[in-house]
């Protein structure tokens, strides 16, 4: 395996509704900043991969238009996943293993505000048995949250505590959308959106974008003082049939964590992509992350959740803390699909 690292990255601050700029206009300065920060000539980037969803944008082939923001001339080697940008990073990691190119640009972007997000996410469900009923994303997560409450291991106050910590930590994240000091008791007084989930249990609707530059071996050391090395990366998927899953657990997250080698050494910090409070609790248990692990110092997806970029942002937030020397080793996670159906785990280390 070749050593691959994140050497540079940038984000657009997440907002509830970006009305002035379109996707390309949001993306272009983010990509430009990621390129500028490591000083690579964009024409030297060997591979480009993006993650986005046409259903989210409401525009077919919107990912092709997005290349306007990248500078695709002379013609670049490029690929796209209809997934979170974290999976674009996975593809770029694999592409760099081929050995013939040494750097890659990955990005994820999306404006969740333009359509009815809860309905748009229904389009990823089983099209025969489930999607015709249009169960929305929050309702499906609420089924999982109820199952977790029924297990007796957690209560609604535990869910709210996740929201309180996330919003508090987000106060120091300039890219976060939701932050502030709240009390558990205060949050528990609010109404349910889909019981047992209240507003604070759900990630906000966000418009945003994220880009990262990957480089191999010596090039990474040349472009960056302290690269965030990808020491393990894996993604696994559970059945789409949520009626045939133990919703209180995440077999795919557990396996992805194992295969990424997370347990080989101490994990100091984890950036988990949990768009619902209870999902953080499920993920922590599935991956064996104890109280000694600092969780989501960025505020996580509960503070900003630009769908299709949110997972890549987790990886980038962790990489930032490795580059700064704050930590030596951590884990980032991304998810896709209803009730944590698909999970990606990426282990990053400093040198």
């Amino acid at each position, binding site marked *: 395996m070749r050593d691959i690292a994140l050497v540079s990255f940038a984000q657009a601050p997440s907002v509830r509704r970006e009305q002035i700029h379109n996707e390309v206009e949001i993306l272009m300065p983010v990509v430009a900043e990621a390129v500028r920060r490591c000083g690579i000539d964009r024409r030297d980037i060997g591979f480009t991969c993006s993650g986005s969803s046409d259903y989210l944008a409401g525009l077919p082939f919107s990912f092709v238009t997005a290349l306007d923001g990248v500078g695709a001339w002379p013609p670049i080697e490029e690929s796209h996943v209809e997934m979170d940008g974290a999976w674009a990073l996975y593809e770029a990691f694999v592409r760099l293993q081929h050995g013939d190119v040494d750097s890659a640009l990955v990005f994820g972007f999306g404006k969740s505000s333009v359509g009815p997000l809860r309905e748009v996410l*229904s389009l990823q469900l089983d099209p*025969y048995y489930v999607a015709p009923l249009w169960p929305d994303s929050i309702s499906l997560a609420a*089924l999982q949250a109820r*199952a977790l409450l029924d297990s007796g291991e957690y209560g609604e106050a535990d869910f709210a505590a996740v929201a309180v910590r996330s919003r508090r930590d987000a106060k120091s994240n300039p890219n976060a959308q939701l932050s502030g000091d709240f009390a558990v008791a205060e949050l528990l007084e609010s*109404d*349910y959106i889909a019981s047992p989930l209240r507003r604070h249990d759900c990630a906000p609707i966000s418009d945003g974008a994220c880009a990262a530059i990957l480089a191999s071996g010596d090039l990474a050391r040349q472009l960056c003082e302290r690269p965030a090395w990808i020491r393990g990366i894996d993604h696994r998927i559970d059945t789409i*049939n949520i*009626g045939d899953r133990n919703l209180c657990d995440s077999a795919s997250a557990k396996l992805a964590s194992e295969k990424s080698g997370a347990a080989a050494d101490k994990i100091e910090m984890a950036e988990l992509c949990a768009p619902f409070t209870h999902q953080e609790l499920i993920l922590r248990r599935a991956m064996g992350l104890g109280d000694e692990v600092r969780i989501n110092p960025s505020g996580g997806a509960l503070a900003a959740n630009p769908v299709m970029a949110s997972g890549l942002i987790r990886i980038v937030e962790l990489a930032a803390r490795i580059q700064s020397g704050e930590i030596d080793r951590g884990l980032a996670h991304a998810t896709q699909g209803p009730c944590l159906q698909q999970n990606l785990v990426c282990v990053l280390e400093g040198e």
Partner: protein
Amino acid sequence: MAEEQEPLEILSARHVVEYPYTRSVGAVIGRFLGGLKDKKIEGSLTPSGRVLVPPSEYDPESGASISDFVEVGEAGVVTTWCWVAEPLAKHPFDRPFAWALIRLDGADTALLHAVDAGDSSRMATGMRVKVRWRQQRSGAIGDIECFEAENLGSQDGEIV
């Protein structure tokens, strides 16, 4: 989610994307949906003896293809649920209702559907519910109009 008023200087347009998808369903799903038309619910039987409702073409454990079917009951147990106080436009009801996973009698997996319970206080994990069939059935998951509490006693399931 609350809609914000847009400032006047921003141009925006309503944009509707429609896809009239027609899907070939294959033998297994086709048999299940055909059964619903006749008020019959069938699951698929895996080599290890599990009954999957709704049925799938393969055994999730081994990947083996499945061709055996078993009829299951039209009543079962709620394994988890959530209460939707404010239904969205595309939801099956315009009044408050529950989504639930329901394990039908004789099945080993749960089916997602709506429960017309009137009030969240009438919902509980473990409660028994039964199918309310749609009058006009076309061979689709919507042939099950919804589920309702089994102990209601009334034929049409209306909650008074």
